[in-house]
């Protein structure tokens, strides 16, 4: 097992290197001169060259590339033009917010999605099934940002907060940055409740698309499993239908669902870009959008790299879980 994880980690190195190269190409080759957007229209050519020299942009491209890779290996993702803080620190500060949102969304999506999927499959062609299909169809068609706006509209009376992570007065200092966790550690119930209320709308919004995808996958997987011979056997030996479904069908049907949940978790990190912007959620997604809007190129470059690495690691984690659950997969063999 440890060998398998180790091998997979080694295999990640070329992928990360490739991602870094592509990001470098986009940010340094396509983009000819960031000095104009950073220094403004009125900067003199001398000032521009001076600034470009400071940033190391006057060097030949291959030298820039080596400097870029060297910095990357030592964990230096560059400095923000705007705040002059290291990008890794900016991202690190915001990581808990995004992770808290993504984790709660995936938990919500898995619970609701699997429930809808199982009910739709078991009661195939019933009214529940039809409602389930309409729900999943809407879920994949409705834009995340519009759903967010609709929820803000619906809850603008202040019953459920529609912005930020927590009431400013309650904000805990230090701790893990995961407010729900911090509240539990500190034993502050009001903090937990407040953080939870702030989490409701963003996580529902972010979860919608994944819920629909998971529901669809669960439905078809359960339907396929219910067709198997061993289900007929289980029914034939007189097991109650509930037991057949829970102990025989679900256990096998959920294996492909887990893969989908894993893939969805990765895409939630990206979906957070839109959700965080709507609900002013102070996470990585909102930071990315702000950096793009203010043309903070190193910040964008750094964030994309960090998010891509997180994305790759999450996918690896999912593969490992999958390998643990599915006895048919052998460790060490790379499944294509």
């Amino acid at each position, binding site marked *: 097992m440890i060998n398998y994880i180790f091998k997979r980690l080694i295999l990640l190195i*070329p*992928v*990360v290197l*490739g*991602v870094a190269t*592509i*990001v470098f190409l*986009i*940010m340094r080759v*396509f*983009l000819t001169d960031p000095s104009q957007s950073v220094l403004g229209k009125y900067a003199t050519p001398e000032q521009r060259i001076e600034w470009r020299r400071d940033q190391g942009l006057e060097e030949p491209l291959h030298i820039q590339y080596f400097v870029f890779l060297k910095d990357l290996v030592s964990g230096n993702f560059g400095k923000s033009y705007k705040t002059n803080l290291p990008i890794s620190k900016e991202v690190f500060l915001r990581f808990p917010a995004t992770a808290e949102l993504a984790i709660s969304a995936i938990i919500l999506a898995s619970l609701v999605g699997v429930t809808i999927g199982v009910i739709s499959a078991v009661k195939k*062609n019933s009214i529940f099934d039809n409602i389930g299909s309409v729900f999943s*169809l*809407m879920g*994949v*068609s*409705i*834009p*995340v*940002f*519009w759903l967010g*706006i*609709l929820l*803000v*509209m619906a809850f*603008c009376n202040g019953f459920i907060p529609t912005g930020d992570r927590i009431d400013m007065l309650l904000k805990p200092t230090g701790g893990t940055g995961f407010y729900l966790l911090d509240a539990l550690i500190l034993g502050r119930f009001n903090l937990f409740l407040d953080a939870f209320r702030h989490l409701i709308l963003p996580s529902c919004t972010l979860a919608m698309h994944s819920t629909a995808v998971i529901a669809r996958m669960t439905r078809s997987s359960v339907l396929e499993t219910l067709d198997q011979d061993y289900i007929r056997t289980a029914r034939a030996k007189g097991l109650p239908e509930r037991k057949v479904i829970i102990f025989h069908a679900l256990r096998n049907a959920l294996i492909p669902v887990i893969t989908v949940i894993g893939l969805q978790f*990765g*895409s939630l*990190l*990206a*979906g957070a*870009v*839109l959700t965080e*912007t709507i609900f002013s959620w102070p996470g990585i997604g909102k930071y*990315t*959008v702000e950096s*793009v*809007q203010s*043309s903070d*190129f190193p910040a*964008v*470059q750094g*964030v*994309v790299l960090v*998010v*891509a690495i997180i*994305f*790759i690691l999450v996918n690896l984690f999912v593969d490992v879980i999958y390998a643990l659950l599915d006895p048919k997969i052998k460790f060490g063999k790379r499944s294509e």
Partner: protein
Amino acid sequence: MSSEVSKENNASLEQVNLIDKQDSRFGDMWYSFKKNKIAVVGLVIAIFLIFVAIFGKFFTPFDPNLTEQDILNPRPPSQEHWFGTDEQGRDIFSRIINGASVSIFVGVASVGFSLLLGMVLGAIAGYYGGKIDTIIMRFIDIILAIPSILLAMCLILTLGAGVGKIIMAIGFISIPQYARIIRGSILSEKENDYVEAARIVGCSDFSIIFKTILPNIVSGIIVRAALGISSAVLEVAALGYLGLGIKPPQAEWGTMLSESRKFVIQAPHTLLFPGLAITLTVLAFNLLGDGLRDVLDPKS
């Protein structure tokens, strides 16, 4: 459920098949597609939207960019302005019709862009195999490792935001999907005898890939392309919402949402209708894609 029905149809139409293979294959598909009511609804809406996108500009009641100086707040829907106006007094109904052309054009064009590049990459990888396959597929893996919306944002940030560049950015992020599906289909098709026959007759690789193999795998590609249009429309709108879309004053649904974001309580109609337009378009192409999959590609 519809596949069972279509099997029966296939059996009953077998005799017709014998008479004219080419013609009845299409007729057969249309017959089973028609059975799927929801897919037909999708097709009808999609055709309607494409019609609006092409000819809509002749039917807009107002100039979509006509502003009024003396108003400060959006006006609610009225008899004159069916969907109300935005804060500059522009007619939202006209802007939504006008926005359809951008969304659908960018959607279709970006699918065309990624389909073309994905087809070439996937075909080369699948047909030749070996080292070139490894190189292309590693490249695809790398693109897939970057969350697509972030990649699109990066590309637009550096390329700038013209319609052509947005098409390229959105097209680029979906190349992997097409390359993968085409590579997979070609891998499984190329072992067939008819490919071997074409090779013996002396057809060039190009003609084997595009004239011999491609017609056999085109159904999977059509399904993917229909679903691809729906996700491309979503991506255009998302980029517009983030302020990275088509440059104003051109009406674009996502940009309309972001411009009216501050009126969420005051004037919900400014946000309701553009969002509905996006949802309807995405829904139509999703329904169409699902329906086509049932007919053309029952395996998946």
